[in-house]
Every structure is written in C-alpha cells, then in structure tokens.
C-alpha cells in the first residue's frame, strides 16, 4: 500500500499576505498531495501542533516579513521537541541568500529563494518527503 503524501503549508508571524501560500497549496494538491493550509498569523507553537495532529510528512513555511531567522528555527525546534523529528521542514518567501546557511543549520532542510518556480519546489518535495 502506497502512502499518500501530506503536507502543511504554514504562515507564521505577522505577515499578512497569503496569496503565495494559497498558490503553493493548490499546486501541491494538483501534484497529488493532501495539503493542510494553516491560515494566517500562526505562532510557531500552533504550526508545530498542527503538523503533529495532522501527521504530515513536511511543513512548507512561507514568510514575507523578514522574521524568518527567528520563526523558522523556532518551528523546527518545537516540532523536534514534540518528538516528530521525521517531519521535513522547508521554507520560502523573501529570504536573502545570505541567510540560507544559518537556516539550514537550524533544522530547515531547504530554502527556496524568491523567484523559484513551483515545479522545482514540488519536485523537491516529491523526492524529499
């Protein structure tokens, strides 16, 4: 029996834009994933709880506010602390190249820089979740 892939598309923090996250969610659905969308303004704790309750394979975080260096590692830390270290976390949004190394050291498996095509993200998720 083949498992169906499940993913949480999450918006953390004060960033009030979710057009990109919704487009990503639909693209994942069209690629055959079951996608839980968190809605706006979630705390890292809320994202971690959702990821665990929904038993997802991956969490895709999108952030345009610039607070990624604080919020992304916090989500990773909480998910791990709650025992679900199998969940793969990746992120995107307005993240500058110079922050990528730090985020990857902080439990984020992949960062997609602005302008990355949806196909590349979905392909990566297909291979890594």
């Amino acid at each position, binding site marked *: *029996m083949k*498992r*169906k892939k*499940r993913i949480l598309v999450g918006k953390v923090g004060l960033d009030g834009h979710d057009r990109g996250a919704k487009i990503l*969610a*639909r693209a*994942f*659905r*069209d*690629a*055959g*994933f*079951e*996608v*839980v*969308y*968190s*809605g706006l*303004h*979630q*705390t890292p*704790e*809320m994202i971690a*709880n*959702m990821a*665990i*309750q*929904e*038993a997802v394979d991956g969490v895709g975080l999108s952030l345009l506010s610039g607070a990624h260096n604080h919020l992304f590692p916090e989500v990773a830390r909480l998910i791990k602390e*709650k*025992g*679900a270290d199998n969940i793969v976390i990746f992120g995107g949004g307005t993240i500058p190249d110079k922050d990528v190394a730090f985020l990857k050291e902080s439990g984020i498996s992949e960062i997609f820089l602005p302008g990355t095509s949806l196909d590349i993200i979905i392909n990566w998720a297909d291979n890594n979740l």
Partner: protein
Amino acid sequence: MSIADKIKSGDILTMSRLIRDIDDGMPEAEITLQKLFKHSGDSKILGITGLPGAGKSTLTSLLISYYRKQNKRVGVVAVDPTSPFSGGAILGDRIRMQEHNADSDVFIKSVATRGSFGGLSKSVVDIVRIMEAAGKDIIIIETVGVGQDEIDVVRLAGQVLVVTAPGLGDDIQAIKAGILEIADIFVVNKCDLVGAEKAASELKDAAEDNITGDLKPIVMTDSIHIKGIDELTESIDIGFDKFNNDNIKNEYLDRRYRYEIEYKVRDKLTETIRESFENDPVFKDILKAVRDKKMDPYTAVTKIMKNVKLT
C-alpha cells in the same frame, strides 16, 4: 508502553501516527484498533453537514469553545473532498478553528475522502474510535458537504446538525432533496445576512411537509457576531441527554456498529472481487464467457457470488 496504552493516555503523537496509518490502509493498524474497541462507544458524537460555505467549520470552532469552557476534551474530524483529477486535496476546514491550535485538549484531524462516497472517508469510523479511546468527551465530525447523500454521518453520529445559510443559491431545495430526514437539529446560519428569516420559514414548511413525528428544532445563528449559539448548544445538550435512556443509547450503538460492520464487509468484498478478476482463472473464464455471449451477466453474477473466496 504499547501503542494502545499510549493512545489511552492521550499521547498526541501516537494518536496522529496511528490515524495516518489507518488513513493509508496499513494493515498492522487494525491490531491496535482491536485493543482500543473496549474503550470506545461512550463519547458524544456530533455530525455537522450542509452545503459548502454554510458555516460548518466556523460553527464547529464555536462549539469547541463551548465544550472547552466546561473543560471537556474535544476531537474534531473534518472531511474534505479528494480531487478526482490529481488524487490530492486541500484540507481547509481548520483555518476556521485556528484559535484552538494551541490547546492541547483539542485534537483536530483533517482527512480527504480518498474516493469514498457518503460524505465521510473510510477512515472516519476508526479515527472516532481512537479519539474516544484517548478520552475525548465530544467528537465533532464535519462532513464534506457537497452531495445530498451524506448519510454515513447519521449512522455514525449520535446527533446531526444540518446547516444552511442564505445566499447559497438553491439551498432549501437542496436540503429538501435529501438531507431533510437526517437532521436532528436544523441550523440557519449567517443570520446577519438578508434572507435568513425567509430561509428559516421555508425550512420550517419543508420540514413540516416531510417529517412524521416530532418536529426538529430550527436554530438561527450568526457565527461571526456569535448570536444564537447558546440556543444551539442548549438544543444539542437536550439531544444528547436522551442517550441517558438505555433504549435510545442501544438503538444508537446498534446503528453505529451496523454501519461500521456493513461498511467494512462491503469494502473487503469489493477488494476481493476486484483482485479475483485480476488473478483468479475462474473469474477470468466467466468474463470471457460473457464476452463470447456464452453466458449472460445475470448468470455471471450468481456464479461469482458462489465463487468469491470469503476469507
């Protein structure tokens, strides 16, 4: 600790992983479910159905708040449709339940139909069992809400709310067509919008025409400004109080377990027959005989019924 013991202690990670295994059809999961059975059957199970956009998820969130104020532990199963094109799904119900995301006594599970009809996924009955064993006092099931034949929830839940709202198009007609009979309580939501009074009176007329016996309560709510929710929860409480009567409780349990067993038997039979057509030479011969017009399909059905290997 065994998986079953962890579930009974309310361990969230174990619960969600077992639910995932069930949803994915992992055969080992059934062993744990067997152990959990004794610890299920006593929670209150509330079904919520109605057209998409009527406000089922928003109402669910308000009901969670009501039960949490009484310190009850709450489980939610929210079902959304699987896309027939991609097999994927967007599970968006819990966006309306955000305020409960940080509450460890609220467990929300989103599932996709994965090809099931009837408004639920195949896994819902087992998910409910796990939530019951984990000590959830109340379990709310939000159905898909796309069809008029969302009857599965009636058999699984103790009570069913049918939610409608003005502005959904031909809403009352749609309700008339099939789900009028399944309601224990009617909710006319979005009472802040014009047309709510009209929707309620049409519903009342339809219900009076349709139902023999007790007339079901019709409650008007506005989930944005939180109006009518006290009346709704009062109706729900009165409904669940009836289960203190052993006859009513037993009737419910018979209905629920019969649904579960029928569903599972049907599911296994469907799978067995599908496999037999692929692998069993007897089935292949029958098919060929029909193709060559040496046997008619009616005879074929009888022959197949005789040849199904019921294991």
